[in-house]
């Protein structure tokens, strides 16, 4: 049994009755929509036409929102409906990144995620969804698409049918009859300055020039809804702070393993850096939640979703914090001469390495679940995050080193680490942006970084600053003067912030609807 929709665009008159019926059924705040009608104008007078498309959640068979929601607030019912429980939602917006269809929004009243849920509350009473009921031309069909004798199955079996962006692989269950590709393909129709009776939102206007469009018909978007970027400065900032935390833990542990150095920098300041930056990271993460009062759901084993990398990432953060915490306590106790816990430190170094790697790298898997953000679904991202952690972790430890003055060899070691980190960062950046991305969505995002709106920040911030840092670090290695690497240590922080910023922003820009 699987409920699905069929939208007959041959008969849809674009009247927005479905839009409004849904709003009144669910008391949806102004500015947000569970279903809406998109208009695209094509052609040149007199062969002009207007295509329409009803946009909404696709109730995917392999729903990425369900897979990635950390608290199981989104779930698939036995009848196939992708439903949600707003009492479990912490407002992390992972689902909004996972969804390739702009289906989800954060309800301004409850501050939790919401979307079309097939009016499951009505279905459970044997009633049609509100949109199906109201449509003047009966253009919205619903039924069991697993049953070949159902009305909807029979209808879809004999008509030419399409779905939105099937290549995302989520197996959408909203089928379109008579829908033009300019309406189904979010990249086919950029807005040209304005909609016909509304303003296009700023993001839509900003990205219009980057879309491939449809040159044959000059398709232009003439009505749609706004889907602002769900994640902003708190996210790219925490990626930086987490990177420092992971890098400090990793480099500290490697220092212990390879140099046997359990001196102050390593013993206490590295894990202290990890703990401090993990606290900042957690604060940013919790601050970014739309329901920060529910952050503790992530610690509740009954609630968390073990397929969600946001939840798993939380576990890894906890693991890193635990190991780092123990290490810090051991180091602090040793330094305060309460006892000698150097052996403990040596032992902790071993699990610290994979823990640190995962603290840095889990984001790759989390981003990998973002089916709506193709740029983030990169095979090199895992390694890139580790390289970045090395780069900024080294920088942070070097700056601390100026204060706690460890042995010069440690500082030189860290300088080499910084150089290695930058080199790896630049190399992987080259790999990431040098070739052609597999999907148009990723290509558009990447292009906006390398050539478009973010180019300055990318080339100056991420690339040039880190390169200069590496050169300065090199100068330290040649001249033994630490002042150069001191500057470098600061530059790599700035470079990473720029990199994370453009990476996080640009991926959320290509339209999905």
């Amino acid at each position, binding site marked *: 049994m699987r409920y699905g929709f069929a939208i007959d665009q041959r008969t849809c008159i674009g009247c927005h009755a479905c839009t409004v019926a849904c709003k*009144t059924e669910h008391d949806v*705040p102004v500015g947000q929509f569970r279903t809406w009608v998109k208009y695209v104008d094509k052609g*040149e*007078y*007199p062969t002009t036409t207007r295509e329409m498309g009803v946009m909404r959640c696709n109730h995917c068979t392999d729903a990425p929102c369900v897979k990635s929601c950390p608290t199981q607030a989104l779930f698939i019912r036995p009848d196939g409906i992708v439903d949600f429980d707003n009492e479990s939602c912490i407002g992390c917006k992972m689902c909004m990144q996972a969804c390739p269809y702009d289906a989800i929004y954060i309800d301004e009243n409850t501050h939790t995620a919401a979307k079309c849920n097939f009016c499951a509350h009505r279905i459970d009473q044997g009633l049609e969804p509100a949109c199906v009921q109201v449509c*003047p*031309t009966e253009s919205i069909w619903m039924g069991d698409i697993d049953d070949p004798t159902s009305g909807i199955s029979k209808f879809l079996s004999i008509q030419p049918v399409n779905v939105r962006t099937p290549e995302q692989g989520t197996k959408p269950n909203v089928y379109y009859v008579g829908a033009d590709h300019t309406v189904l393909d979010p990249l086919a129709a950029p807005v040209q300055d304005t909609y016909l009776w509304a*303003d296009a939102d700023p993001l839509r206007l900003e990205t219009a020039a980057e879309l491939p469009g449809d040159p044959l018909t*000059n398709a232009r978007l*003439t009505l749609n809804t706004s889907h602002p970027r769900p994640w902003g400065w708190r996210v790219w900032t925490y990626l930086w702070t987490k990177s420092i935390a992971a890098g400090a833990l990793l480099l500290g542990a490697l220092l212990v393993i390879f140099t046997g150095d359990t001196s102050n920098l390593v013993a206490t300041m590295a894990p202290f850096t990890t703990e401090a930056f993990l606290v900042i990271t957690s604060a940013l993460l919790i601050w970014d939640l739309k329901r920060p009062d529910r952050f503790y759901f992530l610690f509740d084993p009954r609630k968390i979703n073990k397929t969600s990398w946001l939840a798993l990432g939380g576990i890894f953060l906890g693991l890193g914090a635990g190991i780092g915490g123990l290490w810090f306590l051991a180091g602090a106790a040793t330094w305060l001469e309460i006892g000698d816990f150097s052996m403990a430190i040596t032992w902790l170094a071993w699990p610290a390495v994979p823990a640190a790697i995962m603290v840095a790298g889990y984001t790759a898997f989390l981003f990998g679940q973002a089916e709506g953000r193709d740029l983030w679904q990169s095979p090199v991202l895992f390694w890139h995050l580790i390289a970045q952690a090395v780069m900024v972790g080294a920088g942070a430890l070097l700056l601390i080193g100026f204060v706690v003055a460890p042995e010069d060899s440690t500082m030189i070691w860290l300088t080499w680490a910084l150089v290695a980190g930058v080199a790896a960062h630049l190399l992987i950046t080259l790999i990431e942006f040098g070739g052609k991305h597999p999907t148009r969505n990723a290509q558009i995002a990447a292009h906006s970084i390398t050539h478009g709106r973010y180019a300055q920040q990318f080339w100056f911030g991420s690339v040039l600053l880190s390169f200069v840092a590496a050169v300065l670090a090199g100068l330290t290695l040649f001249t033994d003067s630490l002042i150069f690497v001191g500057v470098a240590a600061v530059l790599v922080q700035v470079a990473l912030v720029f990199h994370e910023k453009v990476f996080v922003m640009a991926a959320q820009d290509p339209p999905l609807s």
Partner: protein
Amino acid sequence: MKPRDKDTVESHGPAASPVGPDAPEHFGLRVRETVSNYPPVEQWDDVVMYDAKAHPRKVGRHYMLVPTTCFNCESACGLLAYVDKETKEVVKIEGNPAHPGSRGRNCAKGPATINQTKDPERILYPLKRTGPRGGSDFERISWDEALDTIAGRIRKAIQEDRRNEVMYHVGRHGEDGFIERVLLTWGVDGNNTHTNICSGGARFGYSVWGGYDRPSPDHANAKVILLLSSHLEAGHYFNPHAQRIMDAKVRGNAKLVVVDPRLSNTASHADEWLSPWPGSEAALLLAIAAYILRTDQVAWDYIKRWVNWKVYLENVHPELDKEDFEAFKTALTADYQQYTFEFAADECRIPAAQIEKTAKIVANAQGKLAAHTWRSATAGNLGGWAVARALFFLTVLTGSVGEKGGTSPNGWNKLIPHGPNMPGGHDSWNELLWPKEFPMSTNELSILLPHFLLEGRGKVDTYFSRVYNPVWTNPDGFSWIEALSDEDLVGCHVAMTPTWSETAIYADFILPFGHSTERHDTQSYEQYAGKWLGFRQPVTRVAREKMGETFTDSRDSNPGEVWEETEFWIELSWRIDPDGELGIRKYFESMKNPGTKIGVDEYYGYIFDNNVPGLPEKASKLGLTPLEYMRKYGAVEVVADLYRQDERALTPAEREGAVPDENGVLRKPITMETQKPLVGEPGAVGVILDDGSEVAGWLTPSRKLELYSPSMADFGWGDLATPCYIQSHVSHKNIDESNNEMVLVPTFRLPTLIHTRSGNAKYLNEISNKHPMWMNTKDADRMGLVTGDMVRVNTEIGHFVARIWSTEAVRPGVTALSHHMGRWRTNDDAGSRWVTGKVDVGKMEDGRWRLRYKEGVKPFVSDDPDSMRINWEDPGVHQNLAFPVHPDTQSGMHCWHQKVRIERAHEEDKYGDVVVDTKKSREVYLDWMSKTKSGPNKDGLRRPEFMMRPVMPMRKAYFVDPPESGSPQE
């Protein structure tokens, strides 16, 4: 694309109704597999619905589903209100499966009604002005004070024989028959409507054909649907028609032809979209007629029987034998060959090949041409009525009149069940409404009221603006402001409205009346080939009465002190004539308890018991009284599948006493006191055709379809008496492109908005809230303009300042600015902040009026958190202010299209500015008046008796010097 075959998909659509055809809800109830669109009727008194916001927790709440009809547009689609049985509040509004017209489905405005009833800025109490008119300062008063003041004035006017100084001016009727009865009881010739800014032009074209003033296309069964309209998104009757048009198109393979200078959503669905130059449409249609004639694809048998071809010959070809039908065929064909495809292509500026292609489509209709124009070209152009005349001509030629899949007249698909004790007619004629210059106007010359008042033709003692916003919706709003501001011209202005408006701020009293869910009305509209009656009711009152409470007044169950008009008019009439000496009170007395006021149950109960054929039987089968039936189901179908009522045999009652005249028209004896029927000549009941059949026929003087209109000749328009083409005032011959002149189409509608009544519907405004002026890319390029550029649009009397949208969605030469936007208020208390901007409006030093926005639309604090989420800011441009009145010479219809000259905005211009010189308004008015030919005709008749006239007077009122009372007249 394969058709959507309902037979293979049994469970989709009304064909799979789970109830039998006698169940009232069978029109719209459907079940697919296990899921239904509505709860079964048996549960409507107590439905448990799971709370959507508590889901997935199952929190059930008990509701009573009470039917009513939508008040947002004239379609009056069925609605079901969900009344929470605990809080007694309406929480949601859905459709009504028992409504034969809308069949359980609605447009966006139906469910959005809840926004309007729950608007935090809603007017909940009667208000009285405290400052000057237009000062937007009001204080709350009691209903008693309002009633006593208004009743006192009307009583005095009646006693002092100034009855016709009382005027009721209606925008959205939403009901049939009630207010006409009230005005008849007062003896007041005071019914003014908005129709001459709306469909008056089209009505003229239809009226001179068959007497009935509107078409009723049978879209569901059509083969060719020809729309000079945008009925898939707006107009009468958008939702019910759109349903049936799409059914025919996709299931029945009907061809949809749409004529519109703009790419409307409707045009985007057309098989053929023609965008002729505005005003040239009759040339297009007559070229199609000419094609049908010369290829002999004409329904000649039908024409021979039902068209007044002999009169045509007599007047157009006196040289021919008027009895010779073959000669007629030849002559008619020859008469129209001047309308070649090339001629039409030249007038229309569209390719001749496209016109030819369309002609072939129409010719192939085989009696199933469903054609409709409501406003569109008939509302835009001088001679626009000729477009409707030409359109119906095609229906005649193709033999589609009154046939299944063709086009019937509205009268066959509509009923107006009258109230008890209908008064006879009054004997006066209000020349402020029906002036002599427009003897054949289909509707009152409401656009000219300010000019008539300002030039001293009369005054209005008590003026009701009822769900109507003439300051905004009419042309020449500053003239309205001048007239309405003058207390000598308008003694007392009562605005009856559910919402703030630009006119209400010029009123002395603002009286809040209910919306869809808060009032009683009956209505019936021609939406398919049947007849239905709808019933609007105050749903919380009905629900609470079912739960055991008793009400005598809807104010006790409505929000605040919002009232309903039925009770108001009864109460007001009682106060006008408390002791009955004026002869008015008796019409508002209970029949069951004489001497007491009639209540709504008794009033509507009477109508349902007596005046709705078939309803008592349907009700009793279900064990209900007729009133109970209507309260339970909200609507009743009186008859289905009704066609060719012209061939209806006369009943014995009709036939008795009727004598045929020399043309075979059966007439009963009449006197000067006989009250005229709504449509048709008094006394005429039918016609004897050549073969002896005695049938009802049509409502023209000849009781046939008048290809030649003797009435037009009678009033001086003999040269326009047959379907013809009149050059529009905005013909391209009048437009100088090199001077950046264009035609402005200011009237196109949006599917989500309804005039100025949807302003406070937040869910509608958030979809549609920007007002760009559409202009073809070529025109924009030519003038060096890009999207967003500000332009000054110059009209005959002033200018407005807009921003353009350079688009391919409108034909070159035409610029289009949608109807609904440009809303304003002068302070923060008197106007909906969901949609208005704040303005300064007043006269400048040079005497010209100026409206200028100080602020756009902004978020505001209210009890509804959504008001702070407003993310739109464009209030729009109030273009109507800059349009002078253009009363069409024959029909009186305001010709909306404007010849405008576009220039870049001047440095001092601001977006939304409107500047007007009302002296120029007066000059244009006088210029258009000078084209008219005044009545009366040579017999002293003011107006043809057959044409529709609500609030029907006695015959004597029709004559300037009526003959002696009592003597019979033919």
